[in-house]
């Protein structure tokens, strides 16, 4: 198990660095899809199949499609710059070092006594099946019932984003239509 973990994590790191280095945007989008899929594979190993499916469908699927559509509507290559980004590199190394220093106090991987496992009282795991009239998947029970209002808010966010995308992309069309109608009216 640990070997496949190490292989997937190495591939994730290599893919991320490749995305950072590559200048062809088309290839970068494809590597982003691969990155999402590798992430989904690791989530499956980490006992989170629901998140893995969602990440594979949304991260590797829909996100890639949206990026490709944007590429088709804009440009496919990134402008090359000769200067080495030394300041961003220093900022990133500093932030990363601070975060790694922060992990030294974290509970170890897979530790069953970690605070994240003890502090919301975990009795809900066993209570969820009677509560949900026999629904076996605890993640679904929490998502749709115990945290149902959160999911409702999430739906509102998606709705707002959809309206936003429509309004942003339709403004040009309606203004040209308005121009057409005014020109027609004057002529």
């Amino acid at each position, binding site marked *: 198990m640990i070997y496949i973990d190490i292989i997937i994590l190495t591939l994730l790191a290599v893919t991320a660095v490749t995305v950072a280095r590559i200048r062809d945007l088309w290839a970068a989008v494809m590597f982003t899809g691969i990155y999402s899929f590798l992430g989904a594979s690791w989530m499956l190993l980490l006992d989170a199949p629901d998140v893995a499916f969602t990440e594979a469908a*949304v991260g590797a699927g829909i996100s890639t499609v949206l990026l490709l559509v944007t590429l088709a509507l804009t440009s496919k290559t990134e402008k090359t710059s000769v200067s080495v980004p030394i300041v961003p590199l220093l900022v990133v190394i500093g932030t990363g070092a601070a975060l790694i220093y922060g992990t030294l106090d974290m509970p170890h991987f897979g530790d069953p006594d970690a605070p994240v496992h003890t502090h919301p009282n975990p009795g809900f795991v066993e209570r969820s099946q009677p509560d949900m009239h026999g629904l076996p998947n605890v993640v679904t029970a929490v998502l749709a019932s115990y945290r149902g209002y959160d999911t409702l808010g999430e739906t509102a966010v998606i709705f707002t984003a959809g309206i936003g995308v429509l309004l942003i992309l339709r403004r040009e069309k309606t203004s040209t239509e308005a121009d057409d109608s005014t020109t027609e009216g004057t002529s």
Partner: protein
Amino acid sequence: MSNDLWQLAITTEQFKGLYNYWIVIFLMMTGFFIVISRKNMIKTVIGLNIFQTSVFLLYITMGKVNNGTAPILGPEDAHHDDHSHDKSHDAEHAAHPFLNQISEQTPAQNVSVGNEPTAPLEVLAEAGNSGLIYSNPLPSVLMLTAIVVGIATTALALALIVRIREDYGTIEEDEILILDRES
């Protein structure tokens, strides 16, 4: 010198427990680097996506329990006498929440339940648990919400990029700034 050796021993012991966080932080910093160093807007969105996926991985990796399995209850759990058992379970196993474990119950014995239908199943039902360890479902739930909200923000950002391209004819930040200063 001995102090150095002691620190090295701690590090090798910690490595197995913490390497997952370190890899995730590396991925996060790669995404952060793309965001702050690249002028191309699509590349910035790609960097944000990588950062975002790394945060998902950070949460999911915290929810893993050793020898655990996905938090999907088996059919034998439906036979529980739930309420009375849950209270005693919470009291007894407050320190080991996701270990719904009989002391000597191993996964192999649990698999053999199908071959010997009555007796072990009764034992399991009386004990009120399946002998399985479940990983924590809460990070999964939070990240499911975050993934969907993330794709919404990505779609909005990409729509803005398409509009910017229509108005400016470019999606490079520095060229857009030059155009703004000229106008």
